[in-house]
């Protein structure tokens, strides 16, 4: 019997036939990268292959690497294995990877979401036999409200804070969430200031996406200038001395985890907005159904619970351990590739 088309080994998701890895977590020769978040695009591979809109992003984060950019749906063949990238809708430049060999099709989602956020090319259903899906939010308690509503409430929050003479500090990880928030912030309310990590990433993304004007906070920035405006900052800036300059301020975080009251309180954030770049429960289930896949492999997230439920629905579902961490990592840890620039 042939080995499975994609295997999970100690380095990552491996296609033995083509000697290619997808999102490997240890250095390898050939790596297909789904998107630019640190747990998926790691340092040290010889050749990176990714969507061309992700190229400037991973170059920004990883420095001088050898990288090939591909278009959506562009097939590239390695030792008779056909690979192609398809939009995953997670963040700008995020792909699913389709792998086909002798008529058998596997798809790895990377991270994905079904809602069109107006920045990332929207998620596209790719028919396959085996679907490797993340399930960061694979519990029925996660049900997202539409982006427009969330953004309205964020803008309302900003206006209210401004009326009370307070600066609004909004946390979102610097690649993806920050630009998504930025795009829909209402600049009629005030000016948008940024933390260095976000400003740098904005500069990488601006050539691809129209974003409102932002001002980087530097040592020279006057406290009075920021007052009442909005500051976009990565979660790791919370609780640092950098933030004191904004006093009096109110903090808000936009994340899927904000669906839990406990998550917001534990981080001592004043206001939580439920906004995620991952699928919610219904998004996961509808995507899985749409692929027509019979075999489902669940990676990072509530894998055990989610795959058990899929088996009850009649899928051949199992879990595989990976080192991807989903929105947990994005929320909990210092973003290891970004220095906090005061």
């Amino acid at each position, binding site marked *: 019997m042939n080995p499975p088309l994609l295997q999970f080994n100690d380095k990552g998701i491996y296609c033995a036939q083509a000697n290619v890895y997808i999102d490997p977590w240890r250095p390898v020769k050939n790596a297909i990268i789904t998107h630019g978040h640190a747990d998926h695009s790691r340092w040290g591979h010889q050749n990176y292959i990714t969507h061309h809109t992700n190229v400037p992003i991973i170059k920004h984060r990883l420095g001088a690497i050898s990288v090939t950019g591909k278009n959506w749906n562009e097939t590239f063949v390695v030792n008779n294995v056909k690979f192609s990238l398809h939009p995953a809708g997670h963040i700008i430049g995020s792909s699913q990877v389709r792998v086909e060999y002798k008529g058998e099709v596997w798809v790895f989602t990377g991270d994905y979401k079904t809602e069109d956020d107006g920045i990332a090319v929207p998620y596209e259903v790719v028919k396959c036999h085996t679907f490797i899906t993340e399930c960061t939010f694979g*519990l*029925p*308690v*996660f*049900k997202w409200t539409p982006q427009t509503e969330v953004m309205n409430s964020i803008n309302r929050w900003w206006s209210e804070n401004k009326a009370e003479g307070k600066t609004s500090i909004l946390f979102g990880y610097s690649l993806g969430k920050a630009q998504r928030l930025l795009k829909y912030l209402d600049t009629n309310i005030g000016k948008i200031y940024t933390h260095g990590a976000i400003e740098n990433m904005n500069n990488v993304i601006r050539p691809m996406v129209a974003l409102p004007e932002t001002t980087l906070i530097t040592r020279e920035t006057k406290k009075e200038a920021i007052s009442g405006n909005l500051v976009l900052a990565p979660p790791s800036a919370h609780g640092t001395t950098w933030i004191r300059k904004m006093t009096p301020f109110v903090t808000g975080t936009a994340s899927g*985890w904000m*669906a*839990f*009251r*406990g*998550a*917001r*309180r*534990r981080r*001592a954030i*004043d*206001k*939580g907005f439920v906004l995620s770049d991952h699928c919610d429960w219904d998004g996961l289930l509808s995507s899985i159904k749409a692929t027509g896949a019979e075999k489902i492999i669940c990676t990072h997230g*509530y894998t*055990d*619970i989610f795959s*058990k*439920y899929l088996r*009850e629905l009649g899928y051949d579902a199992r879990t595989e351990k990976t080192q991807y961490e989903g929105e947990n990592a994005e929320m*909990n840890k210092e973003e290891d590739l970004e220095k906090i620039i005061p």
Partner: protein
Amino acid sequence: MRNFANLIKTLDSSNKTNVKVEALTAYFRTASPEDKVWTIAILSHRRPARPVNTTLLRLWANELANIPMWLFEESYHIVGDLAETIALIIPTNEANSSKSLTTYLQEIIALKSKPEAEKKTYLQENWLALNYYERFVFTKLITGSFRIGVSQKLMTKALSKAEGIDENILAYKLMGNWNPNTITFHDLILAEKSSDYISKPYPFYLAYPVEGEIESLGDPKDWYMEHKWDGIRSQTIFREDQIFIWSRGEELVTDKYPEFHDLIGLIPNGTVIDAEILAFPNNQIGTFNDLQTRIGRKIISNAVLKKTPVILKAYDVLEWEGKDLRNYPYEYRRDVLEKLYQTIENKKLQFHLSERIKINSWDEVTAERMQAREKRSEGLMLKRKDSTYQVGRKKGDWWKWKLEPLTIDAVLTYAMRGSGRRSTLFTDYTFALWQENEHGEKELVTFAKAYSGLTDAEFRKVDDFIKKNTIDKFGPVRSVTPQLVFEIGFEGIALSKRHKSGIATRFPRILRWRQDKKIEEANSIEDLKNMII
């Protein structure tokens, strides 16, 4: 209900006391009198009796969510709060409720005696008719307290601002037994009546721990010391030939201590005693653990009365001959108390005096504190001779000087997700100590659970370790590779048949993470047993 839900949301979404007080004050200024009474009741833990058990609540909520029951349970373990799980899992809509808070509570009270089918219809209809947050609040009204960081004191402060009534007077009015379903806002808060006050206790005066050196308290001759007894702080009221016993949690516990009831008549009407309720097996002071065998029971059987008798160890007298003594000096109040004690000393063995000890030098205090464990107290109380009996926790006149906790190094063996704000992390831990089994092999035996004492950053690290080192999962509990050592502190220790280790510890908590220690260096059950006096 909309206003109440918004209030809860505001209270829940701020960590700042002044924001909370402001929100509550604004609410009290605009809410209807009935809703105000209910809001006070709910925020002081006076919920109506639960009309439906949680098993049925889960079942009916799950029906609407249309998922398997096990999936509901898993979600609940992760969310960590039943009302929140129910609110999240039911399909949502944007409806607002037009019914008032009072209407909901009256419906919930009436629901208790309704047939099951009717309960189900009521709950399901209301769940579907409310938006997410109102559904959460509605379900919380049924299941439990809100845990939104609003103390009774904070609420009283807001009410005082809104109504212009002195905070201490309000605290007094809000204590005791009142029924939010029958009392009006006028009678509870606004009316000035004395006849209702027969069961009413005074607010407890609580002490802060001594800060810095004991000598900083000044001249030792200005002070008395007492032992700090390890039982239940209580206030016992003798008025109109009745007795009322209040615990510090403002719970009326009269029925749990029938042995004090025959003090009626011996202690005159118009007397209020501040005392510690202590277990007293075999005519000596027992441990808190002994007392605990009585606390949870609804019915106190003769066997329990015999096995774990209790005494009142009196500290203070707050009312004498119907007169409020709280503004008199401690010394004066103690004279009254001691005279009273002399009149009944030989008649009733369950009434004891907590000795006040004169202090000539601070060294005497230090020496007395060293005696605490032998005397079965948890340390000392220092009380200024001329101190009045104040309201709540105040600095200055009373200080507590507890013994350092006992400590032991133990190994983390099991973990469970926390609840509330810790619900996404594994923060509830079980710890084990070494013990030799019958084959002479060392094995780890569970001895205590603890869930406080680490910083958020440490909890995240330990949580990360647990997720990567899980051996097995049992529902919400995970067994973890024994690798981490923690220093556990506790207040007391006693032999126990209910514990696998044979030992019960009082108030165990994590003191620090011993990253410098290997599990082989952790202590043994023997070490722990050697700490028992």
